[in-house]
């Protein structure tokens, strides 16, 4: 770590005690520089430092805007009608306005992770000290913070070192957010560049959060054999008191687990979680249980099972407090970002808080001390559980049938449903005593509850669906591998060459939220398909949970039959949302460890390397949050394309290549300076797929890179063609764009493909040493 702290310079100062001249003082870091790698061109990059790189990407992957509506309503000049090419009162047009909204979303996402990181780090420094070492994998991880090293040009060694990294990213987010103010940026492309900047700093923030908690809490340290842990409603022993934690910041949950262990209650209480906190609970405590993704919040609270509900931050339903009240479960809110209107009891004695929550004097409490959260939650759970036995909100079958008879078949529930589920038909059948159609909706429902708010007669439609699917709910017992954290350097060394040369057909990162078009099964299918095809498959967050909710004929979940090692044919759960940084980190480490490219503040070169050589694709099949948007934009700037599910089209713009425009697909050959056509590889940077089938074909296609060797390209083409034939029922029409020489053609399909090449007038080209950066050309052409 080389960055200094505060510098004070006094030229002249006269005081009562004397006269000071030319005094210079430095406070803060005086840590010796231990990183010998030369500093690259862009340490702590400003908003415009990487603008040229961004414009290269945006020239090829032009934004296609898909506005939600015609107006801008951000300031009091408006509302302004921006239909077509109209400009608003501030002068902005629709393209810029849409990219401004994307920037806002990404700033929210980045700020969320960075704010989380700051809270976490402050707590850990208070508990463990500034000098606590950042061990995230022992000797297996020499590049402990690849994203931070790449972006900031510093090598953090202790928790204290991370503070300065956060100083930088917080500053950047403030600047970025100010860009969205009325009367600032006017160019959509500059907005887009800043979107990419937001994503980049988001990845730094995520990395800070995860390496700090891995080091301090002893989470699995880059462990391919991280333990298999329980997932699903059915894994909860409802006979025990149940504490449910929801959110992303694990600190209060750790307070609970520590208090429980320290006071002899380990094993007496079920500690379970929803969303990313759940991942981090199981990284800390093997007996912890994951209920499921964010979309399980409503159904699990309504089941009546939780005795105490603890809310921290991010992805917590805003009505979870009210839902918990309905099942008489006391609520503890543990984050200053999510106070839910509850009184601040942080300074009150724990027993007094327990008493008030137990006797119903207060339905909930805000407690900002995680240790006190632990004490209150455990004591409360032990006392409240016996009082809550047999309490249910999910209606009984008879009640569902009776209430279903009140349905007017007005369709309002269906029109409110983001999935357009055929709810009225199912209610109609339920009124006759047949709950089968409602049960069919269980796996398709994303658990938003909009149907209930739309119902004019107040039917609790979501509860009806959960009741009908209760059998499935109770049978949800799965195994997921606890989040392992980073990828080991040796794993990178083992797979770097086959990835870069194309012999491992690709790295597929299945990440993001659970806004799935047809239920979570599709996530499991995507993961399984590509792991079986010997791709490297990594997961995180809610998608990592959904990937587990599927069993083969032997009753095993994908995490049980695929390896947790980062290698061909694996299924690797890196962990919670902030662990996404390890996926970007793995791509960066391939460039650094395998290809020996300098990492330090050398962003453009590394991103150029990844774009042209590392066949990685992000898939966020259920992406819906602002954090998902910023995570994706961090991947785009690194040259990793991202596919989202159909709801992802509501992110308002795509970054799409045009395969039909030959001029867009030239790179420099770094050996000669020649410009070489490399085909649309990868064709898109941000893309939404209408169906799972389309996504799967596109995953295989987007893994192709200009640098693929002939053998590698043949392998990748084999997967692309095979999936296309199976899922589309036909040959792809663009094979000729990906064949550089005849040796690229898969041997088993040679005759068929050569015939197509001849029909398309295909001509052979060369395989370059590809780059988009003229400064990397080793011998310039005269």
């Amino acid at each position, binding site marked *: 770590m080389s960055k200094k702290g505060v510098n004070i310079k006094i030229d002249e100062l006269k005081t009562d005690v004397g006269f000071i001249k030319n005094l210079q003082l430095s406070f803060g870091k005086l840590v010796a520089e231990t990183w010998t790698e030369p500093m690259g061109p862009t340490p702590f990059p400003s908003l415009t430092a990487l603008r040229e790189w961004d414009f290269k990407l945006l020239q090829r992957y032009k934004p*296609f805007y*898909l506005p939600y509506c015609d107006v801008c309503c951000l300031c009091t000049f408006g509302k302004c009608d921006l239909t077509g090419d109209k400009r608003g009162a501030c002068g902005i047009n629709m393209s810029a306005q849409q990219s401004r909204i994307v920037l806002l979303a990404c700033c929210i996402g980045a700020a969320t992770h960075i704010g989380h990181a700051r809270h976490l780090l402050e707590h850990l420094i208070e508990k463990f000290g500034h000098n606590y070492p950042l061990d995230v994998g022992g000797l297996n991880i020499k590049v402990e913070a690849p994203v931070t090293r790449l972006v900031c040009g510093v090598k953090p060694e202790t928790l204290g070192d991370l503070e300065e990294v956060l100083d930088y990213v917080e500053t950047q987010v403030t600047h970025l957010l100010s860009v969205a103010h009325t009367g600032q940026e006017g160019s959509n492309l500059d907005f887009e560049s800043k979107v990419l900047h937001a994503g980049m700093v988001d990845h730094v923030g995520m990395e800070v959060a995860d390496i700090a908690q891995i080091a301090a809490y002893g989470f699995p340290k880059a462990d391919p054999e991280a333990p298999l842990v329980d997932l699903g409603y059915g894994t909860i022993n409802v006979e025990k008191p149940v504490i449910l934690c929801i959110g992303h910041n694990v600190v209060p949950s750790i307070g609970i687990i520590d208090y429980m262990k320290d006071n002899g209650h380990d094993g007496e209480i079920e500690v379970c979680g929803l969303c990313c906190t759940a991942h981090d609970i199981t990284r800390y405590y093997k007996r912890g249980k994951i209920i499921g993704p964010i979309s399980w919040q409503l159904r699990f609270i309504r089941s009546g099972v939780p005795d105490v509900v603890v809310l921290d931050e991010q992805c917590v339903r805003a009505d979870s407090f009210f839902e918990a009240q309905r099942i008489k479960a006391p609520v503890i809110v543990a984050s200053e970002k999510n106070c839910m209107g509850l009184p601040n009891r942080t300074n009150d004695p724990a027993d007094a808080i327990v008493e008030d929550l137990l006797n119903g004097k207060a339905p909930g409490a805000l407690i900002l001390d995680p240790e006190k959260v632990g004490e209150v939650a455990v004591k409360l759970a032990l006392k409240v559980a016996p009082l809550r036995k047999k309490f249910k909100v999910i209606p009984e079958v008879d009640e569902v049938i009776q209430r279903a008879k009140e349905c007017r078949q007005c369709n309002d529930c269906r029109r409110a449903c983001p999935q357009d589920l055929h709810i009225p038909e199912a209610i109609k059948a339920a009124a006759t005593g047949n709950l089968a159609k409602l049960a069919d909706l269980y796996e398709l429902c994303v658990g938003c509850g909009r149907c209930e708010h*739309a119902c004019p007669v107040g039917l609790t439609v979501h509860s009806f669906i959960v009741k009908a699917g209760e059998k499935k709910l109770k049978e949800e017992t799965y195994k997921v591998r606890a989040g392992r954290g980073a990828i080991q350097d040796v794993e990178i060394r083992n797979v770097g060459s086959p990835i870069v040369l194309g012999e491992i057909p690709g790295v597929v990162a299945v990440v993001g939220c659970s806004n799935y078009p047809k239920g979570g099964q599709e996530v499991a299918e995507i993961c399984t398909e590509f792991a079986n095809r010997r791709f490297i498959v990594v997961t995180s967050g809610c998608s990592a949970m959904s990937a587990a909710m599927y069993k083969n004929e032997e009753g095993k979940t994908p995490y049980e039959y695929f390896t947790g090692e980062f290698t061909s044919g694996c299924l690797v759960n890196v962990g919670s949302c902030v662990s996404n940084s390890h996926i970007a980190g793995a791509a960066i480490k391939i460039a650094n460890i395998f290809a020996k490219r300098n990492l330090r503040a050398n962003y453009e070169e590394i991103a150029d390397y990844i774009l042209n050589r590392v066949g990685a694709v992000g898939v966020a099949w259920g992406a819906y949050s602002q954090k998902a948007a910023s995570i994706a934009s961090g991947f785009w700037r690194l040259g990793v394309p991202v596919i989202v599910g159909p709801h992802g*089209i509501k992110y308002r713009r795509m970054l799409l290549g045009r395969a039909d425009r030959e001029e867009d697909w030239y790179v420099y050959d770094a050996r000669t300076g020649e410009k070489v056509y490399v085909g649309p590889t990868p064709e898109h940077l941000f*893309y939404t797929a*209408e169906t799972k089938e389309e996504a799967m074909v596109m995953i295989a296609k987007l893994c192709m890179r200009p640098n693929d060797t002939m053998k590698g390209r043949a392998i990748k083409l084999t997967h692309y063609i095979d999936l296309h034939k199976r899922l589309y029922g036909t040959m792809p029409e663009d094979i000729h764009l990906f064949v550089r020489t005849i040796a690229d053609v898969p041997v088993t399909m040679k005759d068929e493909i050569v015939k197509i090449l001849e029909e398309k007038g295909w001509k052979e080209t060369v395989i370059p040493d590809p780059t988009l950066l003229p400064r990397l050309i080793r011998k310039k052409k005269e």
Partner: protein
Amino acid sequence: MAAEPWQTAEIPGPKKALVVTKPEVVAAMIKKAKHPILVVGHKAVETELDKKKLIDLMIELAKKAKIPVVATAHIISEFHKRKYKPAGFMPVVDIGNRLVDAEWSGIDGKGPHDLALFVGLPYYMEWTILSGLKHFAPNLKTITLDNVYHPHASWSFPNTSVKDWVENLRVIIEKFEEGGK
């Protein structure tokens, strides 16, 4: 039903689709167009209308009106099973992205399209694609053939029953049987 967006929260803004009250109008607009295109989404295979699938009606329309078809998602094989070869198949975001390019030579290479008909996409995908076209393809008119109101189209049917939907599509197709293009 009234011309309200099918999804209740989908409020477009000042410019909303004109409501098609008579299906004959759609037929007339197709006839008037110089180079229309029909984009068929995957739900056309899942949607059954009057013992036929929506895709079958679209094939009938495309053949009679001589409209080039783009199949989106993975449903190209469903067209081939029915012995019909669409002019192209591509992801819906790709066809949308090409349609905003005034210089694009069309799915069949015969020049820019002046009318795009959409059917069978998930509602929220169709509304966003139509919105992109409304704002960024000024020379293109759009019509949705779905039975739900799409406010971002140039013209849309209101929310209608399946029975009326089939009838509307039948009328459009019959107009071509009577006069052709």
